[in-house]
């Protein structure tokens, strides 16, 4: 059930929306520069644990970020740096989380892509990505109970997470409750090393929408203009009270699962196919075609992005790492219930 | 004809009771098996109870609108013997079960079956060491209490335990202590406590004693000839020093699997002081003649009695000589100090008549007994006897001392 969209508020004609396109492009660019910096910090031994890049998925991600507003909620997948930045995640949050700064939102307790500010609509993923979708449902459910309308929640995941029970339960739940959930699936052809043929047997993941009784849309994930249009429209429809929306983007992961993975298993034919086009390069070509930016402007933007990233990294590298002696090691919000603490003192 | 009870069934998860809503048949009616007979209401739903046999309703024993717990009898159905047999309804058993279905004392007692079930505890044995009797085995709590009160296992020697394998429980212990407190108590002197501590530690070893008589006439004559007369114990000390200088192995101590050999022939001697015994030490007792030791020996006795022994005259000795003869004792089995393997004991001399083979006549002689107590782990009777024999030989040749 792939529906075409003719909506009054849609951004069907992207050529009339250069500002939106440029905003999204610059989020993509900043994400790419920051991701590359993360990779080099990891190779220099400055980052503990894994580094997970969004290379090849920035267009889809940025399209989500620029369509969201304050008050919306976003549960990103691990390759959504562009979307996070576009949805106003401070660049320092990512750097601080990767480097374990105590000034970051996760304070060294969790790292890399596992970050967020749940109170500000940026959910902090757990590793079981399918499990984030029903949490978005919960936020939307609560907003409805509080009679807050006109906001949406976006959850994203890859093709792999669509095989989990959580994904099914949550989409069914959102459909039953008619929640303003936009589920964006980045079908990037591989879940770690597992190709989609081993992940699902339907023609396209968008066919799942029929089973849930919700509309589904497909989009070329390498084309920022298409992503802005399709994702933007899905968000507009959800915001207008039309219930959950499923968007499936087709693209190729242009890197390993993490930086520890050389991705030798990726089919070379896929790399040279239309799916293997670098969305950032394609967006730059489009900007020049439309005369929205010339080579000088693009170089200027890149230079600004590099500056921003270098400033952030330099700042965070001077910040204190977590200290096991000052860490509270307390897990409960209700301090009086901490064992060996107030409970004992009270008796 | 047998009467089969109508029992309130378990009508759902966790249901405890149900209320009688209506009777769908009347006493005297003939009912088929599985026919609805009573309508009841539970917390969850309304439902019908069915007859479990073909028969005639004999009576209902319950009231409309009242609640009855699961398992209670609601009435009886009269059935033929054949029907009861066919359905496996042993009416005698049923009557018995009904009479036993007393109100459950616990929440688990829903049905007669559960009341009868016997459960083997899943806990296994509680291990008690083989030597548990008395204070041979002490629980952590008993050990802690003993430590708190400064007591030792020996203090519980008189206490029979009531616990597993006769162990002393904490209750036994506390009762014992509170009974002791009813008797007259005086604090033991620090000397007493120190001696008790030393003896307790010594007594952890398997101790044995050997003894032999020795003729003392020549020693007494030798002593009489001296200007300053050495005490008999000093003779013994010198004799033991010489014997050990010839072979110090018997003074070794067993630590683990090693014999620790003495590095010097430092010998102590027992001095009775008020409420205890002190042991001054003469260093390198093998290297000075008897005559040269007398003054030192007498001085140390004096210092001991004043409790002013210098540090270099206490501790670190390898054997002790004790002259229990001064108390008129002819025989004793003294206990070596905890850090020593040997204690030489000297009994009181007595005049005895002895057959003189050479002159073929009886002669009066002075005889006393020597004893040597030792750690049997280190020394056997033979080795101990040879050492004691050498000491006796030297005492009978005092000029060699």
């Amino acid at each position: 059930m792939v529906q075409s969209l003719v909506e009054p508020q849609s951004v069907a004609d992207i050529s009339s929306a250069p500002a939106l396109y440029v905003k999204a492009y610059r989020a993509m660019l900043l994400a790419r520069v920051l991701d590359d910096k993360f990779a080099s910090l990891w190779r220099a031994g400055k980052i503990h644990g894994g580094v997970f890049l969004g290379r090849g998925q920035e267009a889809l991600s940025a399209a989500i970020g620029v369509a969201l507003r304050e008050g919306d909620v976003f549960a990103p997948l691990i390759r959504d740096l562009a979307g996070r930045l576009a949805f106003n995640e401070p660049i320092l949050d990512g750097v601080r989380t990767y480097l374990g700064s105590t000034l970051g939102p996760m304070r060294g307790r969790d790292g890399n892509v596992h970050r967020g500010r749940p109170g500000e609509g940026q959910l902090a993923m757990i590793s079981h990505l399918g499990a984030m979708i029903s949490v978005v449902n919960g936020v939307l459910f609560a907003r409805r109970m509080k009679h807050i309308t006109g906001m949406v929640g976006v959850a994203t995941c890859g093709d792999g997470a669509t095989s989990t029970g959580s994904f099914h339960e949550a989409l069914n739940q959102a459909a039953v409750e008619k929640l303003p959930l936009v589920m964006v699936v980045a079908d990037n052809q591989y879940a770690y090393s597992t190709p989609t043929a081993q992940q699902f047997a339907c023609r396209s993941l968008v066919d799942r929408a029929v089973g849930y009784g919700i509309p589904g849309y497909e989009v070329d994930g390498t084309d920022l203009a298409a992503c802005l249009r399709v994702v933007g429209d899905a968000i507009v429809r959800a915001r207008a009270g039309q219930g959950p929306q499923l968007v499936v983007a087709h693209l190729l992961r242009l890197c390993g699962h993490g930086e520890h993975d050389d991705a030798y298993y990726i089919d070379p034919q896929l790399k040279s196919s239309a799916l293997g086009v670098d969305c950032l390069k394609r967006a730059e070509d489009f900007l020049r075609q439309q005369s929205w930016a010339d080579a000088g402007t693009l170089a200027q933007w890149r230079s600004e992005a590099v500056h921003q990233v270098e400033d952030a990294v330099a700042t965070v590298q001077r910040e204190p790492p977590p200290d096991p002696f000052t860490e509270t090691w307390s897990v409960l919000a209700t301090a009086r219930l901490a064992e060996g603490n107030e409970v004992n003192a009270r008796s | 004809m047998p009467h089969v009870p109508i029992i309130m069934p378990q009508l759902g998860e966790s249901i405890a009771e149900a209320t009688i809503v209506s009777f769908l048949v009347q006493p005297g009616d003939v009912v088929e098996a599985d026919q609805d007979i009573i309508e009841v209401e539970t917390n969850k739903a309304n439902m019908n109870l069915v007859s479990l046999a073909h028969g005639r309703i004999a009576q209902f024993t319950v009231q409309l609108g009242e609640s009855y717990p699961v398992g209670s009898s609601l009435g009886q159905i009269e059935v033929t013997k054949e029907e009861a047999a066919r359905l496996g309804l042993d009416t005698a058993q049923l009557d018995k079960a009904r009479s036993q279905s007393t109100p459950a004392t616990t929440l688990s007692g829903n049905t007669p079956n559960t009341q009868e079930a016997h459960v083997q505890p899943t806990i296994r044995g509680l291990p008690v060491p083989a030597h548990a009797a008395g204070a041979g085995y002490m629980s952590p709590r008993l050990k802690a209490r003993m430590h708190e009160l400064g007591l030792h296992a020996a203090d519980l020697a008189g206490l029979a335990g009531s616990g597993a394998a006769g162990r002393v429980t904490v209750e036994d212990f506390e009762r014992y202590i509170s009974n002791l407190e009813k008797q007259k108590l005086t604090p033991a002197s620090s000397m007493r406590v120190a001696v008790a501590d030393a003896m307790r530690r010594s007594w952890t070893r398997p101790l044995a004693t050997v003894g032999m008589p020795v003729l003392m006439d020549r020693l007494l004559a030798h002593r009489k000839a001296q200007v300053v007369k050495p005490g008999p114990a000093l003779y013994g000390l010198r004799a033991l020093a010489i014997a050990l200088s010839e072979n110090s192995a018997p003074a070794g101590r067993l630590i683990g699997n090693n014999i620790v050999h003495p590095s010097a022939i430092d010998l102590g001697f027992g001095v009775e002081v008020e409420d205890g015994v002190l042991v001054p030490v003469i260093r390198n007792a093998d290297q000075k003649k008897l005559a040269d030791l007398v003054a030192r020996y007498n001085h140390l006795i004096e210092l001991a009695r004043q409790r002013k022994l210098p540090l270099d005259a206490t501790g670190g000795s390898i054997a002790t000589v004790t002259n229990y003869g001064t108390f008129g004792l002819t025989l004793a089995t003294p206990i070596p100090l905890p850090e020593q393997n040997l204690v030489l004991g000297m009994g009181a001399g007595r005049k005895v008549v002895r057959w003189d083979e050479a002159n073929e006549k009886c002669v009066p002689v002075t005889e006393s007994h020597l004893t040597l107590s030792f750690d049997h782990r280190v020394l056997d009777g033979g080795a101990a006897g040879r050492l004691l024999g050498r000491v006796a030989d030297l005492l009978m040749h005092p000029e060699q001392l």
Partner: protein
Amino acid sequence: MSITYLEAIRAAQARALADDPRVFIYGQDVGAFGGAFKATKGLAKEFPGRVLDAPISEDAMAGLAIGAAIEGLRPIIEMQFADFSTVAFNQIVNQAATLFWRTNVPCPITVRLPCGATSGSGPFHSQTMEAIYAHYPGIVVLTPATVEDAYSMLLEAVVIDDPVIFCEHKLLYYHLKAEALPTEALPVGKARIAREGRDLTVVTYSAMVHESLAAAEVLHSDGWEIEVVDLRSVKPLDTDTVMGSVARTGRLLCVGEAWPWGGVTSEVIARVTCEGYDLLDAPPQRLNAKDTPVPYHPNLWAAHRPTARSIVDAARKVLQY
């Protein structure tokens, strides 16, 4: 007037809904039907739009509750049977339990688990799951044994700013009655001395409190005085009250309906042994269900779980040591 354990749970939810507009109830069949056990009977009508049926999706139920909690609401979710909460296990232990620690955003959800075995319930409607949830940091696990505690602790659970696993015992639902709802209560985290004694401490919780009290009564007629400690909450665990009791008696028996491997009884024994070794005059012992799934037939079931009778047997062994 008398009130059952189940009615107390219903009453606590009614009061929580009335007192705090942030509270809502979500679970299978909890709406108009009033819940499989009628723990929410009439609440959907009394509080329109706040007592809502969920699809058979425990994972999504828990996820939704977590999202709502992030938004500042105080959801109560009912798992129809504790056994089914395994489907939501990931959400509870990985999402809810870590949220505050990771992000500083509290996760005040209450997960009601109708737990414990009743006659004829079999392997999948009988489990007691406090141990497995207590194992995870960031979760409060409550195990009320009385009508009064069922009421007061459920009210407190809703107020607590952390995920609470509320283990309500199905066997107590209808069997346990009290004269009235309590007006005051011990706080969560404090154990209760259910019966005072001097010879043996029995530490237990939930339905096993009643089996232990019955056992204590039997042993009383033999001259033994058994002290029964009702933990009330297994996490936080009130080690002080347990230790104080063992200091009086010197002997410890822990009784739990859960399986023997690990769990609350072993945790209590580990703590007493580690921190109170010098209090013990006998090796501490524990009594649990047998290490098999919960059997269906009443004869097997009655022998599978600890009962007053097996507690008496176990207690005698410890007493005679």
